[in-house]
């Protein structure tokens, strides 16, 4: 029932999404380059998540789109119109902040109606639209509550309704879930996605949580020192990372020493193809996903290239992550839990690495994880 009402509410609120283009944005703060030529084109109605470690410039990018910060150079184009020089209040952006941002002196519906008041919508229509928006986020029973009478998750939902009430051209979300606990987070994440799809608004979502970004986005842009390192659908980002940085930032990765030779890398006798076949020969670190590692028990007997001992098992639900000691290094393998339970700690196992194309990392420094 809720969905039909919500859909009806959206019927009046819908505005076809517009294309949003960030062109070569540069932003420096005294000595720090926050954005270093960031470019991104978002299709109408698309949800793009910017993912990256702390300090890589995600918030700065978002604030440039909102006009809360001015770019040193570059352009922001929304629906074909260059808005680079426009002040925030003329830009038609909806924004949800990381910090709770409801106006404390107004009730939920008054908060939602605030932007409409700024647009001189008459009182009766304001009240009605605010009601519809609260319905959309599933809070119609809370219209007369003040912010301090709402939970954190409810406050963020009202903030979302408030941002959407003005029918903005772009929706900007700066880690809107990071102040919430894990359960509420996951639920609200799906809620945001549902609302975004219903309204069809072009959305930029900032997160340093890879699970969140991969779950919600049409495309994910992984950022690294002020630039987008890789942009693509979540599955591509996860399974075919373009650079070592992306591979290590998104998901867990085994760093296995090997030798590059003739377009392949030899890791303890397993020959794996390379993502970039033109990599120069020589010793290197191969980045291997835990899912690409398979395990069989009874190591010694077979002529397996890699033999080790299970030292720990972490249950993640349907799958489990098994840590295997190979003597000089440890390897993580991700297995169905049913297989993993057959491998208690101490079991001698034989592992094999699937011949997926792998990335090579030559700089020892692992990226900082947020």
């Amino acid at each position: 029932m809720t969905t039909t009402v919500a859909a009806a509410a959206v019927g009046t609120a819908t505005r076809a999404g517009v294309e949003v283009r960030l062109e070569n944005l540069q932003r420096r703060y005294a000595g720090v380059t926050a954005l270093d030529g960031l470019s991104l084109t978002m299709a109408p109605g698309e949800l793009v998540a910017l993912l990256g470690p702390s300090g890589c410039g995600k918030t700065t990018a978002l604030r440039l789109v909102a006009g809360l910060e001015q770019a040193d150079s570059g352009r922001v184009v929304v629906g074909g119109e260059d808005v680079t020089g426009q002040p925030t209040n003329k830009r038609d952006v909806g924004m949800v902040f990381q910090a709770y941002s409801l106006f404390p002196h107004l009730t939920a519906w008054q908060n939602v109606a605030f932007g409409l008041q700024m647009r001189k919508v008459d009182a009766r229509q304001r009240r009605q639209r605010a009601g519809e928006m609260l319905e959309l986020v599933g809070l119609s029973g809370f219209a007369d509550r003040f912010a301090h009478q709402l939970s954190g998750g409810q406050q963020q939902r009202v903030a979302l309704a408030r941002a959407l009430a003005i029918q903005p051209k772009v929706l900007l979300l700066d880690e809107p879930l990071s102040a919430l606990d894990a359960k509420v987070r996951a639920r609200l994440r799906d809620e945001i996605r549902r609302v975004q799809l219903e309204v069809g608004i072009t959305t930029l979502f900032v997160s340093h949580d890879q699970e969140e970004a991969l779950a919600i986005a049409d495309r994910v842009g992984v950022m690294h020192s002020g630039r987008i390192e890789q942009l693509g659908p979540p599955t591509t980002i996860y399974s075919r990372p373009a650079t070592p940085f992306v591979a290590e930032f998104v998901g867990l990765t085994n760093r296995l020493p090997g030798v590059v030779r003739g377009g392949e890398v030899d890791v303890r006798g397993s020959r794996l193809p390379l993502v970039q076949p033109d990599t120069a020969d020589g010793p290197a670190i191969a980045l291997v996903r835990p899912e690409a590692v398979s395990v069989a028990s009874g190591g010694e007997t077979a002529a397996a290239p890699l033999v080790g001992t299970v030292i720990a098992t972490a249950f993640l639900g349907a799958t489990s992550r098994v840590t295997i000691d190979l003597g000089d290094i440890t390897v993580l393998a991700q297995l169905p839990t049913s297989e993993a339970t057959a491998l208690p700690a101490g079991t001698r196992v034989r592992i094999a690495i699937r011949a997926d194309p792998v990335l090579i990392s030559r700089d020892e420094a692992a990226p900082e994880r947020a």
Partner: protein
Amino acid sequence: MTRARRLRLRVFRVIVLVLGGAFFLVPIGAMFEFSTRGNRVGAPRTLEAWTTIVTYPDLLGAIRDSLGLATITSVGMLVLLLPTMIWVRLRLPRLKRTIEFLCLLPLTIPAIVLVVGLSPVYRWMAINLVDTIFLLSFAYLILVLPFAYRALDAGLSAIDVKTLSEAARSLGAGWGTVMFRVIAPNMASALLNACLLSVALVLGEFTFANLLSYLNLQVEIFQLGLANAGTSIAVSVASLMFAFILLVILSFFGRPRKRVAPERTGLPYPIAAAGPR
């Protein structure tokens, strides 16, 4: 907590309350007692000193002028300080120290020094512009700056000015709307604090007015005291009561309606209400 301990705590509280109350009320009671004495030894109690307040022509004028000064000073203080402080907080955070220093400076300068510095300016204004007591509000503005600054700063620190104003801006609000419709309503009790501090300070001001030769309430009370001690004391008690009522109103309205850290809502300073400064 044991019962005995709770009892002791209660007794302690009552004692403190009684002592504190006595400290404030005994002098006021004595003043009231004095103001109702008759003129001769053994004369019956009389409210004559009180009734002359209304009939004393200069006195009523002085009260009116002082209230006018208090109003002008409060409004001027808000107009000057509130936008400045919000702007500094949002756009020029590196100026915060400077502004704070400037605002607190008057605390460190003795009133007499200020007056000596200001008196040529006042003489010039009186001759070349208009000669009205309301010119004093310029000087009073300086005087209330430190107190008002503290009160407003506490109010601004209690809310997330940056996020609230950015949220409002993104919803289409201009800077005026941000200040008056978003920030100000959320620091109402701080605004009230600042205003009432200003009012209390102005109503109790003596040095400036006297040395610059203006007749405000306290100067009038002082001169009255030379001629008619009873009425002078009666007016003092009345102005103390007035300040007291203002403070009660403050604590009544200043009660946080919403979740505001309770320790932030009290007065930033104890104030010496309505005593000659």
